[in-house]
């Protein structure tokens, strides 16, 4: 275990919530609405949550077998040294890529709606700088910092939704299940991949101080984000209708712009940008932490902090080359590749590893929930 930090089960729950929601609340509604129309909230609430619970179960089962190691540390043990190390290296690369996607999501959002002329590189440097500083301080500090950000995040978005709630036209949420369950399943693909980010549990489990509450935190986080994301989606569609919302890139931003209370409380989109940045810094920090721990454990290093800086630079370069100025590429990735990519990384491979571990009788405890 490379990080000596300890986090409580509540902190774990909040961190995992933030890992998913920090970007999902803004990016998902539009993508879901394109496929599921007025039923989008069902996709987000039902199908995606079911998938998230499956991921949580597998991750907790794996965690219970190897309670004091992160995913990449026990891979060689389960699969044998060479394949294990190879898969660990592959996972590190995957994580670096995922992190660059988040970096790209952030700079594109800020760049398109807010700072039109600031070079995205500067935005990236600031955000990544803050996140990397958190990583240097360790997982414990991240969890505590998140305890501060989380209530602000939840409260601000709830208030934004409440302020725009009187514009909701319930007609926009009808008809329910007009085309059967297929669009709902289709719409759930992208949010499910997001909900599956609860698989960061694989890398945070060792730091948990009450291991028996892992499943509770993981399931709690999945359910909580299910309800939260469904509320955001339902309000978005209720106000804008799925036809308009699916055409907007950031419908929640438009929602914040649409607020008008007594002609005074208007133009609140800046709050949304503050919320977004606070959330993304936490999300990025957790991603960087996991990346660097994975890289360090794969390479057999003593201190994970050595790898943070190169990884941070790598993500900035990758996101700059791939996504920074090309919104279409990012959308293509998020809506076409990310679901399958996500399912493989989050559910399929950990599931197979669990299977192998059970068959080869690796790891300590039995799988018991």
């Amino acid at each position, binding site marked *: 275990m490379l990080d000596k930090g300890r986090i409580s089960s509540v902190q774990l729950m909040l961190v995992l919530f933030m890992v998913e929601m920090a970007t999902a609340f803004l990016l998902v509604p539009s993508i879901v609405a394109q496929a599921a129309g007025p039923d989008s909230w069902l996709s987000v609430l039902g199908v995606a949550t079911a998938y998230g619970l499956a991921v949580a179960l597998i991750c907790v089962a794996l965690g219970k077998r190897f309670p004091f190691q992160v995913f990449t540390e026990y891979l060689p043990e389960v699969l044998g040294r060479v394949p294990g190390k190879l898969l660990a290296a592959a996972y590190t690369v995957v994580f670096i890529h995922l992190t660059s996607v988040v970096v790209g999501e952030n700079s594109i959002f800020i760049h*398109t*709606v807010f*700072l*039109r*002329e*600031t070079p995205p590189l*500067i935005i990236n*440097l*600031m955000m990544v*700088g803050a996140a990397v*500083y958190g990583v*240097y301080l360790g997982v414990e500090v991240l969890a505590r910092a998140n305890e501060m950000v989380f209530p602000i995040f939840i409260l601000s978005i709830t208030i934004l939704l409440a302020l725009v709630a009187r514009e909701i036209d319930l*007609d926009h949420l*009808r*008809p329910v299940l*007009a*085309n059967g369950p297929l669009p709902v399943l289709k719409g759930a693909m992208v949010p499910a991949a997001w909900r599956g980010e609860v698989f960061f549990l694989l890398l945070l489990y060792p730091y948990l101080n009450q291991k028996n509450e892992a499943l509770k935190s993981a399931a709690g986080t999945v359910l909580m984000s299910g309800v939260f994301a469904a509320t955001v989606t339902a309000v978005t569609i209720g106000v*804008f*209708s799925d*036809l*308009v919302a699916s*055409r*907007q890139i950031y419908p929640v931003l*438009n929602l914040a*712009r*649409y607020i*008008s209370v007594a002609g005074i409380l*208007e*133009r609140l989109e800046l709050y949304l940008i503050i919320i977004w940045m606070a959330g993304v810094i936490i999300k990025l920090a957790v991603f960087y932490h996991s990346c660097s721990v994975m890289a360090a454990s794969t390479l057999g290093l003593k201190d994970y*902090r050595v790898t943070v800086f190169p990884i941070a630079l790598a993500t900035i370069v990758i996101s700059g080359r791939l996504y920074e100025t090309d919104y279409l590429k990012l959308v293509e990735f998020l809506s076409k590749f990310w679901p399958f990519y996500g399912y493989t990384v989050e559910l399929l491979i950990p599931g197979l590893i669990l299977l192998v571990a059970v068959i080869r009788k690796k790891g300590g405890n039995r799988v018991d929930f």
Partner: protein
Amino acid sequence: MTFRKKFKIKTIVGLFLLVLISLTMTGCWNRREMNDITLSTAIGIDRVVVDGRPIFLFSVLAARPAVPSGGATAGGGGGTTGPRVAGVGTVISTEGETVYDAIRNYSMRTSRQLFLSHSLVIVFGEEMAKEGIGEVLDFCNRQKDIRERTWVVVCEGLARDALQSQPEMESITSVELNKMIPLNQSRASKVAIANLFQVTRDLLTPGKEAAVSNIKLFVPPETSSPIRPTGTAQTPGSPSGKGGGAEIQAQNKTFALSGAAVFRGDRMVGRMDEEETQGMLFIKNQADGGIIPIAFSAPEKNASFLYRDVKAKVKPVINEDGSIMFEIRINGKVELQEQKNAAIDIAEEDIKHAEELINQEVERRCIKAVARSKELKSDVFGFGEKIYRSKPKAWEEIQSQWGEIFPIVIVSVTADFKIEHLGLINKPIVIQ
């Protein structure tokens, strides 16, 4: 050792962050100072033909920067707020092949960068509206400055002239319009009301068409009005003004809201008068308050009622033979506001009779609105959407032919208004 190493890393990171923060705190990268921008308060978009080629004419009603005190200005108020003279706006219009082309051409005409974020109203000229506003709506939704709450209105004639018309109460036309449109909804409900988002949604939704406020320009009939050409305080006609000569210029006109401009698809196909618009607002649940005059046992209207808390329910019914019917129920409360020569006694049967007359009047207005929209073949009520929302299967079958079906649907309107209040006198004033 480890302590020193840790300390070193911390120092380096700290110094790095310090430098980064101090670099980024110095100011905004893309700052736009107040004296570098034009605050657009309303935009007008016209389609005109120049040299046989159709182009966009983009007009901006900009808040004119305050002249520092000490300048020889008419008001001479000075101070920080600047002089308050009639019309603090300047209209500047530019031409372009597309809307954004025209917007950027603004920089060839003025020294300041255009800042659209404070636009309160988008005015479409008549030709523009008739030719189709789809392209402009795409632009407005696509770019980040124009807000979803911006009112959309259609004017008679050129939008540029509408922007040049004079406000009568506020300092600038756009502010006056911005206040008038929602005010009308609660005071008279005789003007369609739609903002940018609503128009976009109505155009996107199958089985629903857009109807927006309509404005007209006129020379104020009141001789004391400073706007009239015969008045004393004249603003010199700008070189970009339309026509000139004997024609009364836009600067000598004021504007009024008037009914609704009705669209089919993204093209304006006609207008509704005030009564029809009110009927439409009743059905669309947008009539928040207004007056219904009735003729109570008299040849002409002799009593008026104020309505409020109006709720309309539209229920689509598809009969077995395939004919489509809409049952509309409108409930509301009314207050007696005035009556002539004690026509209505406060006895129960008179109240009943009055309620009946009110219901008839409301029904008449709604039917008139329906008839007009059928005539224009434009489903401004969203009847088609109602079918889609409640009977998606049936809608799928008729969606492609809705344009032909809508004019032959049967609409029945039942109004049920209750008199709840009689004002401050309970016995009528009987003239002896």
